[in-house]
């Protein structure tokens, strides 16, 4: 077990109000770690700290350290951190361009394309990895905004894969999707686990139990419990965890 991400004593604040309190948590390489918890438990704040998306918010401040492969992420350049730690949002928002351009956008900006002919390969591989290739291979040049919700979300996954990150953060990726599309996204997650490390924030407790290796339960800005998913769902140590996963509150 190699720790990919180490979080040490992390506290986060919005306008001086503490939303995440002295968090210590590790993410193991090639695992899916899901984070569950009721609203305002700090799980999204935690996720958005990992690739420093929160830094865009001027009311946000933090204490503590986060290490990615032993490098402190707060010392890294934001762009290179986000290249290594990709993020998928709750709402699938394709950029306003074609399917092809959506995927090639980031590799181009980041200067990852050395040869012009290489582009097609990147696009095809990314779409295949996101299990979208067969559905869109004949209309790569049509607008991405015309796809269905589930396809858009998988396009967003493909877009992240094209940059070849090490960690992918999923922020409630299926909250707007129907059960069939959800199943497809979950399927791609399980496949992606072979190559990437995944952190999944979800409101869907069942989803956490379906896909993740370990599950962390957050409540009111604190980590209550973290354990192997199989164990946490069968015999949680804390009363609050049990209440939440059995649907008694939250």
């Amino acid at each position, binding site marked *: 077990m190699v720790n990919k991400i180490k979080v040490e004593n992390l506290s986060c604040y919005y306008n001086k109000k503490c939303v995440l309190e002295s968090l210590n948590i590790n993410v193991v390489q090639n695992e899916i770690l899901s984070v569950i918890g009721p609203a305002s438990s700090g799980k999204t704040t935690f996720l958005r700290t990992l*690739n420093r998306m929160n830094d865009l918010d001027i009311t946000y401040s933090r204490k503590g350290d986060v290490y990615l492969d032993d490098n402190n992420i707060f010392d890294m350049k934001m*762009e290179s951190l986000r290249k290594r730690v990709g993020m998928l949002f709750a709402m699938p928002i394709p950029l*306003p361009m074609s399917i092809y351009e959506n995927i090639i956008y980031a590799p181009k900006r980041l200067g990852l394309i050395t040869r012009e002919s290489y582009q097609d390969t990147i696009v095809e591989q990314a779409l295949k990895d996101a299990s979208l290739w067969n559905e869109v291979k004949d209309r790569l040049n049509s607008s991405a905004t015309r796809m269905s919700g589930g396809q858009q979300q998988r396009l967003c996954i493909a877009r992240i894969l094209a940059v070849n990150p090490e960690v992918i953060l999923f922020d409630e990726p299926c909250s707007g999707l129907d059960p069939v599309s959800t199943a497809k996204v979950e399927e791609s997650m399980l496949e992606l686990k072979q190559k990437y490390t995944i952190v999944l924030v979800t409101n869907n407790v069942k989803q956490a139990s379906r896909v993740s290796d370990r599950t962390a339960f957050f409540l009111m800005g604190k980590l209550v419990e973290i354990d192997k998913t199989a164990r946490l769902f069968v015999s949680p140590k804390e009363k609050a965890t049990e209440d939440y996963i059995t649907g008694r509150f939250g």
Partner: protein
Amino acid sequence: MRKSLDAVIETLIFICGMLSIVFVVLIFGFLFKEGFAFFKDFGVLKFITGQFWYPSSEPASFGILPLILGSVLVAVGACLIAVPIGIMTALFISEIAPKGVRDVLKSLVELMAAIPSIVIGFVGMVTVVPLVKNIFNLSTGLTAFAGAIMLAFMAIPTIVTISEDAIRSVPWQYKEGALALGATKWQTIRRIVLKAAMPGIIAAIMLGIGRVIGETMAVMMITGNAAHIPRSIFDPVRTMTATIAAEMGETVRGGMHYRSLFAIGLVLFIITFIVNFTADLFLGKKKNR
């Protein structure tokens, strides 16, 4: 009782709504009537392509090519100055400036739109005109270039406010998505924000152009009023609007000269109509998406 009051108010509102349409149609009809009477006597082609504007000599020559070129030269010059400055200001206000600066800048730009054109013309005459004369070592500073600078000042507020709206209405998630992929702030602005806001920005530019072409007082004071075909932007020019304003007082009502000015008005009307129509096309495209 209540029902009849309702009907009265409804009719009143209907009439007010119709009035604006009626006015436009009346103005257009009037321009057409006088303009066409002139075209019948003089000829459209000769009017538009004629190189000499000598309305009061014998025989009179009514060629408005110099006036059209004057208007176009000033308008193009103004756009070259106003468009980049306007768009960058809009970007600064909506994307880069801290909140305090943004509010101040926004109200200042709106204030700029409220300056009467005669004041801009006056200020331009005593400041920009001598400056242009000295810098470029010209015999007179009253040139198309000076006019373009002052007109740019008048177009900038329009361009800034409308493009700023367009840029602000780009969904926040686009920016977040691009940033999360590791794009820098500038890459995000250039490839995503500007691209998504483009229809709105083009509409802003068109409306700015409309304002510039229709402007009269400032250009009349600054551009030198010489109705000849300009060879460069540093020549004095006379615009279509300035011609109408300057000569209407000296014409005989119903005469050739009088009608020729209406014909100029008609040409101007058609140009601004095309510009506004294009702007609407782009704005409409943005809404339909």
